[in-house]
Protein backbone atom coordinates (compact mmCIF):
# COMPACT_ATOMS: atom_id res chain seq x y z
CA UNK A 1 0.00 0.00 0.00
CA UNK A 2 0.96 3.70 -0.34
CA UNK A 3 3.47 2.86 -3.05
CA UNK A 4 2.90 6.15 -4.84
CA UNK A 5 4.51 7.99 -1.92
CA UNK A 6 7.95 6.50 -2.59
CA UNK A 7 10.11 7.86 -5.44
CA UNK A 8 12.35 4.78 -5.24
CA UNK A 9 9.37 2.61 -6.13
CA UNK A 10 9.02 4.45 -9.45
CA UNK A 11 12.26 2.77 -10.44
CA UNK A 12 12.25 -0.68 -11.85
CA UNK A 13 13.23 -2.52 -8.66
CA UNK A 14 11.67 -4.91 -6.18
CA UNK A 15 13.05 -3.86 -2.82
CA UNK A 16 12.89 -6.61 -0.21
CA UNK A 17 15.73 -5.58 2.12
CA UNK A 18 13.79 -3.44 4.57
CA UNK A 19 15.55 -4.99 7.53
CA UNK A 20 18.70 -3.25 6.29
CA UNK A 21 17.06 0.08 5.59
CA UNK A 22 13.67 1.30 4.37
CA UNK A 23 12.84 3.54 1.45
CA UNK A 24 11.89 7.15 2.09
CA UNK A 25 8.53 8.72 1.24
CA UNK A 26 8.46 12.07 -0.57
CA UNK A 27 7.24 13.84 2.57
CA UNK A 28 10.44 12.90 4.43
CA UNK A 29 12.64 13.94 1.52
CA UNK A 30 10.70 17.23 1.31
CA UNK A 31 11.06 17.95 5.04
CA UNK A 32 14.83 17.55 4.81
CA UNK A 33 15.08 19.64 1.66
CA UNK A 34 12.85 22.27 3.25
CA UNK A 35 15.25 22.64 6.17
CA UNK A 36 18.29 22.97 3.92
CA UNK A 37 16.45 25.28 1.52
CA UNK A 38 14.38 27.52 3.75
CA UNK A 39 15.63 27.69 7.33
CA UNK A 40 19.12 26.25 7.42
CA UNK A 41 20.41 27.52 10.77
CA UNK A 42 21.76 25.94 13.92
CA UNK A 43 19.62 24.74 16.82
CA UNK A 44 19.62 26.04 20.39
CA UNK A 45 20.46 29.59 19.30
CA UNK A 46 17.08 31.26 19.02
CA UNK A 47 18.48 34.77 18.48
CA UNK A 48 16.87 35.16 15.09
CA UNK A 49 13.73 33.88 13.42
CA UNK A 50 15.02 30.99 11.33
CA UNK A 51 17.08 29.63 14.23
CA UNK A 52 14.05 29.86 16.45
CA UNK A 53 12.15 27.89 13.85
CA UNK A 54 14.89 25.22 13.82
CA UNK A 55 14.55 24.87 17.58
CA UNK A 56 10.83 24.48 17.25
CA UNK A 57 11.09 21.80 14.58
CA UNK A 58 13.83 19.96 16.46
CA UNK A 59 12.03 19.94 19.78
CA UNK A 60 8.69 19.19 18.14
CA UNK A 61 10.25 16.01 16.81
CA UNK A 62 11.28 15.05 20.33
CA UNK A 63 7.68 15.37 21.33
CA UNK A 64 6.60 13.33 18.29
CA UNK A 65 9.00 10.56 19.26
CA UNK A 66 7.79 10.66 22.87
CA UNK A 67 4.24 10.21 21.72
CA UNK A 68 5.16 7.57 19.15
CA UNK A 69 6.68 5.26 21.77
CA UNK A 70 4.53 6.58 24.62
CA UNK A 71 7.38 7.71 26.84
CA UNK A 72 6.36 9.55 29.97
CA UNK A 73 8.48 12.64 29.43
CA UNK A 74 10.09 14.47 26.55
CA UNK A 75 13.42 14.50 28.40
CA UNK A 76 13.57 10.74 28.09
CA UNK A 77 14.14 11.02 24.33
CA UNK A 78 17.77 11.51 23.27
CA UNK A 79 18.74 11.94 19.63
CA UNK A 80 21.77 9.92 18.56
CA UNK A 81 23.38 8.92 15.27
CA UNK A 82 21.47 5.65 15.28
CA UNK A 83 20.65 2.46 17.12
CA UNK A 84 24.33 1.48 17.34
CA UNK A 85 25.37 4.69 19.05
CA UNK A 86 22.39 4.46 21.39
CA UNK A 87 23.38 0.96 22.53
CA UNK A 88 27.02 1.97 22.94
CA UNK A 89 26.00 4.97 25.03
CA UNK A 90 23.99 2.71 27.32
CA UNK A 91 26.79 0.18 27.73
CA UNK A 92 29.53 2.77 28.21
CA UNK A 93 27.81 5.73 29.73
CA UNK A 94 25.54 3.88 32.10
CA UNK A 95 26.64 0.30 32.76
CA UNK A 96 30.37 1.00 32.82
CA UNK A 97 29.81 2.99 35.97
CA UNK A 98 27.78 0.40 37.83
CA UNK A 99 28.92 -2.99 36.54
CA UNK A 100 31.01 -5.16 38.82
CA UNK A 101 33.35 -8.05 38.20
CA UNK A 102 30.99 -10.90 38.93
CA UNK A 103 27.96 -9.34 37.26
CA UNK A 104 26.33 -11.11 34.35
CA UNK A 105 24.93 -9.62 31.18
CA UNK A 106 22.26 -11.74 29.56
CA UNK A 107 21.83 -11.61 25.77
CA UNK A 108 21.01 -14.20 23.08
CA UNK A 109 22.97 -15.67 20.22
CA UNK A 110 20.61 -14.12 17.71
CA UNK A 111 21.42 -10.51 18.62
CA UNK A 112 22.79 -8.07 16.07
CA UNK A 113 26.47 -7.13 16.46
CA UNK A 114 25.53 -3.77 17.97
CA UNK A 115 23.82 -5.53 20.87
CA UNK A 116 26.72 -7.94 21.35
CA UNK A 117 30.02 -6.12 20.92
CA UNK A 118 29.42 -3.26 23.41
CA UNK A 119 28.74 -5.94 26.06
CA UNK A 120 31.79 -7.94 24.99
CA UNK A 121 33.93 -4.86 25.56
CA UNK A 122 32.40 -4.32 28.98
CA UNK A 123 33.18 -7.93 29.82
CA UNK A 124 36.75 -7.63 28.62
CA UNK A 125 37.32 -4.43 30.56
CA UNK A 126 35.64 -5.24 33.84
CA UNK A 127 35.59 -9.02 33.97
CA UNK A 128 31.80 -9.26 34.04
CA UNK A 129 30.36 -12.15 32.03
CA UNK A 130 28.24 -12.20 28.89
CA UNK A 131 25.81 -15.13 29.05
CA UNK A 132 23.20 -16.38 26.61
CA UNK A 133 19.55 -17.10 27.14
CA UNK A 134 18.93 -20.58 25.73
CA UNK A 135 16.63 -20.41 22.68
CA UNK A 136 13.85 -22.92 22.09
CA UNK A 137 13.53 -25.21 19.04
CA UNK A 138 12.25 -22.39 16.85
CA UNK A 139 15.12 -20.16 18.12
CA UNK A 140 12.67 -18.16 20.20
CA UNK A 141 13.14 -16.50 23.56
CA UNK A 142 10.57 -17.64 26.11
CA UNK A 143 10.06 -16.25 29.59
CA UNK A 144 10.80 -19.72 30.93
CA UNK A 145 14.21 -19.73 29.28
CA UNK A 146 14.94 -16.21 30.49
CA UNK A 147 14.25 -17.43 34.01
CA UNK A 148 16.67 -20.31 33.41
CA UNK A 149 19.37 -17.88 32.30
CA UNK A 150 19.01 -15.59 35.30
CA UNK A 151 21.31 -16.05 38.29
CA UNK A 152 21.74 -13.90 41.42
CA UNK A 153 24.53 -12.13 39.48
CA UNK A 154 22.45 -11.09 36.47
CA UNK A 155 22.59 -7.31 36.21
CA UNK A 156 21.12 -6.58 32.80
CA UNK A 157 19.18 -8.33 30.05
CA UNK A 158 19.75 -6.85 26.59
CA UNK A 159 17.47 -8.08 23.83
CA UNK A 160 16.14 -7.11 20.46
CA UNK A 161 12.37 -6.90 20.48
CA UNK A 162 12.41 -8.45 17.01
CA UNK A 163 15.62 -10.10 15.78
CA UNK A 164 16.99 -9.31 12.37
CA UNK A 165 17.43 -12.88 11.07
CA UNK A 166 14.88 -15.04 12.86
CA UNK A 167 12.33 -12.23 13.09
CA UNK A 168 10.81 -13.56 16.29
CA UNK A 169 8.94 -11.15 18.55
CA UNK A 170 10.18 -11.45 22.12
CA UNK A 171 7.83 -11.30 25.14
CA UNK A 172 9.48 -8.09 26.35
CA UNK A 173 6.70 -7.04 28.71
CA UNK A 174 6.77 -10.33 30.62
CA UNK A 175 10.57 -10.30 30.67
CA UNK A 176 10.64 -6.74 32.06
CA UNK A 177 8.15 -7.58 34.79
CA UNK A 178 10.13 -10.62 35.88
CA UNK A 179 13.49 -8.86 35.57
CA UNK A 180 12.40 -5.90 37.64
CA UNK A 181 11.17 -8.20 40.39
CA UNK A 182 14.79 -9.36 40.53
CA UNK A 183 16.39 -5.92 40.23
CA UNK A 184 17.66 -6.55 36.73
CA UNK A 185 17.80 -3.83 34.06
CA UNK A 186 16.28 -4.46 30.63
CA UNK A 187 17.70 -2.88 27.47
CA UNK A 188 15.52 -3.31 24.38
CA UNK A 189 16.99 -3.00 20.89
CA UNK A 190 14.04 -1.77 18.86
CA UNK A 191 15.82 -1.48 15.49
CA UNK A 192 13.63 -4.11 13.83
CA UNK A 193 10.45 -3.55 15.79
CA UNK A 194 9.65 0.13 16.24
CA UNK A 195 8.90 0.59 12.53
CA UNK A 196 6.73 -2.50 12.32
CA UNK A 197 4.49 -2.54 15.36
CA UNK A 198 3.11 -0.16 17.92
CA UNK A 199 5.59 0.56 20.71
CA UNK A 200 4.62 1.58 24.21
CA UNK A 201 7.66 1.80 26.47
CA UNK A 202 5.59 2.32 29.58
CA UNK A 203 3.47 -0.71 28.89
CA UNK A 204 6.57 -2.77 28.02
CA UNK A 205 8.36 -1.53 31.11
CA UNK A 206 11.70 -1.23 29.29
CA UNK A 207 14.46 0.68 31.06
CA UNK A 208 16.09 1.60 27.76
CA UNK A 209 14.91 1.33 24.15
CA UNK A 210 16.99 2.13 21.08
CA UNK A 211 16.18 2.51 17.39
CA UNK A 212 17.25 4.06 14.08
CA UNK A 213 15.29 6.48 11.92
CA UNK A 214 16.41 4.96 8.62
CA UNK A 215 14.65 1.67 9.31
CA UNK A 216 11.33 3.51 9.73
CA UNK A 217 11.15 5.59 6.53
CA UNK A 218 13.41 8.27 7.99
CA UNK A 219 16.90 9.44 7.02
CA UNK A 220 20.19 7.72 7.81
CA UNK A 221 22.48 9.03 10.55
CA UNK A 222 19.87 9.65 13.20
CA UNK A 223 18.42 7.47 15.92
CA UNK A 224 16.90 7.51 19.35
CA UNK A 225 17.94 6.52 22.81
CA UNK A 226 15.01 6.25 25.17
CA UNK A 227 15.73 5.74 28.84
CA UNK A 228 13.75 6.08 32.02
CA UNK A 229 14.55 9.51 33.35
CA UNK A 230 16.10 8.33 36.60
CA UNK A 231 18.58 6.24 34.59
CA UNK A 232 19.33 8.85 31.94
CA UNK A 233 20.17 11.23 34.80
CA UNK A 234 22.96 8.81 35.70
CA UNK A 235 24.12 8.25 32.13
CA UNK A 236 27.49 9.88 31.69
CA UNK A 237 27.86 11.71 28.37
CA UNK A 238 30.41 10.06 26.09
CA UNK A 239 30.78 13.24 24.08
CA UNK A 240 31.50 16.55 25.72
CA UNK A 241 31.43 19.86 23.95
CA UNK A 242 29.18 22.58 22.68
CA UNK A 243 25.52 22.80 23.47
CA UNK A 244 25.59 20.40 26.40
CA UNK A 245 27.46 22.50 28.96
CA UNK A 246 26.00 25.13 31.22
CA UNK A 247 29.31 26.82 31.99
CA UNK A 248 32.96 25.99 32.56
CA UNK A 249 35.91 27.84 34.02
CA UNK A 250 38.47 25.26 34.87
CA UNK A 251 38.86 21.49 35.17
CA UNK A 252 36.99 21.54 38.43
CA UNK A 253 34.33 23.92 37.31
CA UNK A 254 32.34 22.28 34.53
CA UNK A 255 28.59 22.44 34.75
CA UNK A 256 26.46 20.45 32.36
CA UNK A 257 22.95 21.15 31.15
CA UNK A 258 19.90 19.17 32.03
CA UNK A 259 18.48 16.27 30.06
CA UNK A 260 18.12 15.79 27.17
CA UNK A 261 20.64 18.39 25.94
CA UNK A 262 23.33 17.07 28.28
CA UNK A 263 23.55 13.93 26.14
CA UNK A 264 23.52 15.67 22.76
CA UNK A 265 26.91 17.38 22.47
CA UNK A 266 27.80 19.27 19.33
CA UNK A 267 25.58 20.45 16.52
CA UNK A 268 23.05 17.68 16.16
CA UNK A 269 21.91 16.07 12.93
CA UNK A 270 19.19 18.70 12.56
CA UNK A 271 18.07 17.71 9.08
CA UNK A 272 18.00 14.09 10.20
CA UNK A 273 15.91 14.81 13.26
CA UNK A 274 13.45 16.88 11.22
CA UNK A 275 13.31 14.02 8.71
CA UNK A 276 12.58 11.60 11.53
CA UNK A 277 9.73 13.84 12.61
CA UNK A 278 8.28 13.70 9.11
CA UNK A 279 8.69 9.91 9.07
CA UNK A 280 6.75 9.58 12.30
CA UNK A 281 3.98 11.81 10.92
CA UNK A 282 3.91 9.62 7.85
CA UNK A 283 3.73 6.31 9.76
CA UNK A 284 1.06 7.71 12.08
CA UNK A 285 -1.03 8.72 9.09
CA UNK A 286 -1.09 5.12 7.90
CA UNK A 287 -1.38 3.70 11.40
CA UNK A 288 1.01 1.27 13.08
CA UNK A 289 -1.66 -1.37 13.64
CA UNK A 290 -2.56 -1.28 9.99
CA UNK A 291 1.12 -1.64 9.03
CA UNK A 292 1.53 -4.61 11.34
CA UNK A 293 -1.55 -6.37 10.03
CA UNK A 294 -0.63 -5.76 6.39
CA UNK A 295 2.89 -7.11 6.95
CA UNK A 296 1.65 -10.21 8.70
CA UNK A 297 -0.70 -10.99 5.83
CA UNK A 298 1.97 -10.40 3.22
CA UNK A 299 4.42 -12.61 5.11
CA UNK A 300 1.87 -15.39 5.22
CA UNK A 301 1.27 -14.97 1.48
CA UNK A 302 5.03 -15.26 0.82
CA UNK A 303 5.63 -18.18 3.17
CA UNK A 304 2.69 -20.17 1.79
CA UNK A 305 4.09 -19.77 -1.70
CA UNK A 306 7.66 -20.62 -0.70
CA UNK A 307 6.42 -23.77 1.04
CA UNK A 308 5.23 -25.12 -2.31
CA UNK A 309 8.78 -24.99 -3.67
CA UNK A 310 10.59 -28.19 -2.66
CA UNK A 311 14.13 -26.80 -2.96
CA UNK A 312 13.48 -23.91 -0.57
CA UNK A 313 14.21 -24.36 3.10
CA UNK A 314 12.69 -21.70 5.35
CA UNK A 315 14.76 -21.13 8.50
CA UNK A 316 12.21 -19.13 10.49
CA UNK A 317 8.89 -20.67 9.55
CA UNK A 318 7.26 -19.91 12.88
CA UNK A 319 8.07 -16.20 13.00
CA UNK A 320 5.46 -13.54 12.92
CA UNK A 321 7.29 -10.49 11.58
CA UNK A 322 8.04 -9.43 8.01
CA UNK A 323 11.37 -11.28 8.00
CA UNK A 324 11.71 -14.52 6.05
CA UNK A 325 15.09 -16.29 6.10
CA UNK A 326 15.63 -19.18 3.71
CA UNK A 327 18.09 -21.10 1.64
CA UNK A 328 17.87 -22.61 -1.82
CA UNK A 329 19.03 -26.18 -1.48
CA UNK A 330 22.57 -26.63 -2.74
CA UNK A 331 23.08 -23.00 -3.77
CA UNK A 332 25.13 -20.55 -1.75
CA UNK A 333 22.97 -17.69 -0.48
CA UNK A 334 25.12 -15.04 -2.10
CA UNK A 335 24.76 -16.69 -5.50
CA UNK A 336 20.98 -16.60 -5.05
CA UNK A 337 21.14 -12.89 -4.22
CA UNK A 338 23.33 -12.18 -7.27
CA UNK A 339 20.89 -14.09 -9.44
CA UNK A 340 17.89 -12.14 -8.13
CA UNK A 341 19.82 -8.90 -8.62
CA UNK A 342 19.89 -9.63 -12.34
CA UNK A 343 16.11 -9.19 -12.21
CA UNK A 344 16.37 -6.08 -10.01
CA UNK A 345 15.16 -7.95 -6.96
CA UNK A 346 17.03 -6.74 -3.87
CA UNK A 347 17.43 -9.22 -1.04
CA UNK A 348 20.18 -9.72 1.49
CA UNK A 349 22.50 -12.71 1.69
CA UNK A 350 24.87 -13.49 4.50
CA UNK A 351 24.95 -13.71 8.25
CA UNK A 352 23.20 -10.34 8.69
CA UNK A 353 25.60 -9.13 11.40
CA UNK A 354 24.41 -11.91 13.71
CA UNK A 355 27.66 -13.80 13.63
CA UNK A 356 27.14 -15.93 16.71
CA UNK A 357 23.75 -17.11 15.50
CA UNK A 358 25.33 -19.91 13.48
CA UNK A 359 26.10 -21.77 16.70
CA UNK A 360 22.42 -21.78 17.40
CA UNK A 361 20.81 -22.44 14.02
CA UNK A 362 23.58 -24.51 12.46
CA UNK A 363 23.38 -22.44 9.30
CA UNK A 364 26.01 -19.77 8.67
CA UNK A 365 24.44 -17.91 5.80
CA UNK A 366 20.93 -17.33 4.60
CA UNK A 367 18.94 -15.33 2.08
CA UNK A 368 16.78 -12.82 3.88
CA UNK A 369 13.63 -11.15 2.61
CA UNK A 370 12.35 -8.40 4.88
CA UNK A 371 9.00 -6.90 3.96
CA UNK A 372 7.42 -3.54 4.62
CA UNK A 373 3.99 -2.08 4.01
CA UNK A 374 4.84 -0.81 0.53
CA UNK A 375 5.68 -4.29 -0.72
CA UNK A 376 2.82 -6.12 -2.37
CA UNK A 377 1.65 -9.49 -3.62
CA UNK A 378 2.82 -8.82 -7.18
CA UNK A 379 6.36 -8.36 -5.92
CA UNK A 380 6.14 -11.53 -3.87
CA UNK A 381 4.82 -13.37 -6.95
CA UNK A 382 7.75 -12.12 -9.02
CA UNK A 383 10.23 -13.29 -6.36
CA UNK A 384 8.59 -16.70 -6.05
CA UNK A 385 8.51 -17.11 -9.82
CA UNK A 386 12.27 -16.47 -9.96
CA UNK A 387 12.99 -18.91 -7.13
CA UNK A 388 10.74 -21.67 -8.46
CA UNK A 389 13.06 -22.78 -11.22
CA UNK A 390 16.23 -24.12 -9.68
CA UNK A 391 17.73 -24.89 -13.09
CA UNK A 392 17.33 -21.25 -14.01
CA UNK A 393 19.06 -20.06 -10.82
CA UNK A 394 21.84 -22.54 -11.44
CA UNK A 395 22.20 -21.36 -15.00
CA UNK A 396 22.08 -17.64 -14.38
CA UNK A 397 23.75 -17.19 -11.03
CA UNK A 398 27.23 -16.50 -12.40
Amino acid at each position, binding site marked *: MNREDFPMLQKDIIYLDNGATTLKPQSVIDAITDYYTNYSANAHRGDYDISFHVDEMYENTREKVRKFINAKEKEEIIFTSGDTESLNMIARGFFENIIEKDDEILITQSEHASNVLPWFRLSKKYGCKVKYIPLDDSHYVTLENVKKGITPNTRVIALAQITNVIGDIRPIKEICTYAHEHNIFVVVDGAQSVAHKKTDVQDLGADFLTFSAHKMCGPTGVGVLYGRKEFLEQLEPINLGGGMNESFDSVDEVYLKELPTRLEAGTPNIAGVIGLGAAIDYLNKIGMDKIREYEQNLRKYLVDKLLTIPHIDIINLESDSGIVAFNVEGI*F*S*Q*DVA*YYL*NKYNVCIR*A*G*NHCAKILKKEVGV*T*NTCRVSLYFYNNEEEVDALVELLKDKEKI*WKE*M*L
Partner: protein
Amino acid sequence: MDENIRRELIMEHYQNPRNKGKEIDETYQKVNTNNASCIDNLDIYVKVEDKKIKDIAFDGEACAISTASCSMMITNLIGKTIQEAYEYIENFERMVEEKPYDENILESALAFNEIYKQNNRKNCALLPYKGIRQILDQLKEDI
Protein backbone atom coordinates in the same frame (compact mmCIF):
# COMPACT_ATOMS: atom_id res chain seq x y z
CA MET B 1 36.89 -17.30 -24.44
CA ASP B 2 33.47 -18.41 -25.64
CA GLU B 3 30.71 -17.66 -23.17
CA ASN B 4 29.44 -21.22 -22.95
CA ILE B 5 32.88 -22.68 -22.40
CA ARG B 6 33.53 -20.02 -19.80
CA ARG B 7 30.37 -20.90 -17.95
CA GLU B 8 30.98 -24.63 -18.18
CA LEU B 9 34.49 -24.27 -16.83
CA ILE B 10 33.37 -22.19 -13.86
CA MET B 11 30.50 -24.52 -13.03
CA GLU B 12 32.71 -27.58 -13.39
CA HIS B 13 35.21 -26.16 -10.90
CA TYR B 14 32.43 -24.99 -8.59
CA GLN B 15 30.79 -28.40 -8.48
CA ASN B 16 34.03 -30.35 -8.31
CA PRO B 17 36.49 -28.03 -6.66
CA ARG B 18 40.07 -29.26 -6.73
CA ASN B 19 41.50 -30.20 -3.35
CA LYS B 20 38.59 -28.78 -1.38
CA GLY B 21 38.41 -30.28 2.07
CA LYS B 22 41.50 -32.38 1.38
CA GLU B 23 43.30 -33.72 4.40
CA ILE B 24 46.48 -31.82 5.09
CA ASP B 25 49.31 -32.13 7.57
CA GLU B 26 51.70 -29.80 9.37
CA THR B 27 53.89 -29.34 6.29
CA TYR B 28 51.23 -26.96 4.89
CA GLN B 29 51.06 -23.25 5.65
CA LYS B 30 47.57 -21.89 6.30
CA VAL B 31 45.96 -18.56 5.57
CA ASN B 32 42.39 -17.36 5.96
CA THR B 33 41.04 -14.98 3.37
CA ASN B 34 37.67 -13.27 3.36
CA ASN B 35 35.83 -10.40 1.78
CA ALA B 36 34.80 -7.62 4.10
CA SER B 37 31.79 -6.73 1.98
CA CYS B 38 30.42 -10.23 1.53
CA ILE B 39 30.40 -13.60 3.19
CA ASP B 40 33.03 -15.55 1.26
CA ASN B 41 35.43 -17.13 3.69
CA LEU B 42 38.23 -19.47 2.59
CA ASP B 43 41.10 -21.23 4.30
CA ILE B 44 43.98 -21.93 1.91
CA TYR B 45 46.78 -24.40 2.65
CA VAL B 46 50.05 -24.39 0.73
CA LYS B 47 52.93 -26.82 0.74
CA VAL B 48 56.22 -25.59 -0.69
CA GLU B 49 59.34 -27.65 -1.25
CA ASP B 50 62.57 -26.44 -2.88
CA LYS B 51 60.96 -23.11 -3.81
CA LYS B 52 58.28 -25.01 -5.71
CA ILE B 53 54.58 -25.25 -4.96
CA LYS B 54 54.10 -28.90 -4.22
CA ASP B 55 50.44 -28.79 -3.26
CA ILE B 56 47.59 -26.42 -2.39
CA ALA B 57 44.29 -27.27 -0.70
CA PHE B 58 41.39 -25.17 0.53
CA ASP B 59 38.26 -25.21 2.59
CA GLY B 60 35.47 -22.90 3.64
CA GLU B 61 32.23 -21.36 2.50
CA ALA B 62 32.09 -19.19 -0.58
CA CYS B 63 30.03 -18.35 -3.64
CA ALA B 64 30.37 -20.06 -7.00
CA ILE B 65 32.79 -17.48 -8.37
CA SER B 66 35.14 -17.55 -5.38
CA THR B 67 35.07 -21.33 -5.16
CA ALA B 68 35.68 -21.87 -8.88
CA SER B 69 38.37 -19.22 -8.96
CA CYS B 70 40.15 -20.88 -6.04
CA SER B 71 39.89 -24.32 -7.63
CA MET B 72 41.34 -23.08 -10.92
CA MET B 73 44.08 -21.19 -9.17
CA ILE B 74 45.08 -24.32 -7.30
CA THR B 75 45.05 -26.44 -10.44
CA ASN B 76 47.24 -23.96 -12.27
CA LEU B 77 49.69 -23.15 -9.50
CA ILE B 78 50.65 -26.64 -8.36
CA GLY B 79 54.10 -27.46 -9.77
CA LYS B 80 55.08 -23.84 -10.37
CA THR B 81 58.08 -22.19 -8.75
CA ILE B 82 57.33 -19.31 -6.41
CA GLN B 83 58.66 -16.96 -9.06
CA GLU B 84 56.29 -18.39 -11.68
CA ALA B 85 53.43 -18.32 -9.20
CA TYR B 86 53.87 -14.58 -8.64
CA GLU B 87 53.86 -14.00 -12.36
CA TYR B 88 50.64 -15.97 -12.71
CA ILE B 89 48.96 -14.18 -9.81
CA GLU B 90 49.96 -10.79 -11.16
CA ASN B 91 48.53 -11.59 -14.56
CA PHE B 92 45.26 -12.76 -13.11
CA GLU B 93 44.93 -9.61 -11.05
CA ARG B 94 45.72 -7.46 -14.08
CA MET B 95 43.05 -9.26 -16.09
CA VAL B 96 40.39 -8.65 -13.45
CA GLU B 97 41.44 -5.01 -13.10
CA GLU B 98 41.23 -4.52 -16.90
CA LYS B 99 44.95 -3.90 -17.34
CA PRO B 100 47.11 -5.46 -20.07
CA TYR B 101 48.02 -9.06 -19.24
CA ASP B 102 49.61 -12.14 -20.76
CA GLU B 103 46.83 -14.54 -21.85
CA ASN B 104 49.20 -17.39 -22.40
CA ILE B 105 49.95 -18.23 -18.81
CA LEU B 106 46.49 -18.06 -17.22
CA GLU B 107 45.12 -21.30 -18.67
CA SER B 108 41.63 -22.16 -17.32
CA ALA B 109 41.52 -18.98 -15.24
CA LEU B 110 40.88 -17.12 -18.50
CA ALA B 111 37.29 -18.10 -17.77
CA PHE B 112 37.21 -14.93 -15.68
CA ASN B 113 38.32 -12.64 -18.51
CA GLU B 114 35.00 -10.80 -18.45
CA ILE B 115 34.39 -10.71 -14.73
CA TYR B 116 35.33 -7.02 -14.75
CA LYS B 117 31.89 -6.39 -16.24
CA GLN B 118 30.32 -7.41 -12.93
CA ASN B 119 31.78 -5.00 -10.46
CA ASN B 120 30.23 -6.67 -7.44
CA ARG B 121 31.86 -10.01 -8.30
CA LYS B 122 35.42 -8.91 -9.02
CA ASN B 123 36.36 -9.34 -5.40
CA CYS B 124 34.91 -12.85 -5.39
CA ALA B 125 37.27 -13.90 -8.18
CA LEU B 126 40.22 -12.15 -6.54
CA LEU B 127 39.64 -13.53 -3.06
CA PRO B 128 41.75 -16.72 -3.32
CA TYR B 129 44.57 -14.68 -4.89
CA LYS B 130 44.55 -12.34 -1.93
CA GLY B 131 45.11 -15.35 0.31
CA ILE B 132 47.79 -17.05 -1.74
CA ARG B 133 49.73 -13.80 -2.04
CA GLN B 134 49.81 -13.52 1.70
CA ILE B 135 51.26 -17.01 2.09
CA LEU B 136 53.85 -16.56 -0.65
CA ASP B 137 54.94 -13.19 0.76
CA GLN B 138 55.46 -14.89 4.10
CA LEU B 139 57.43 -17.72 2.54
CA LYS B 140 59.60 -15.27 0.65
CA GLU B 141 60.57 -13.69 3.94
CA ASP B 142 61.34 -17.09 5.41
CA ILE B 143 63.54 -18.18 2.53
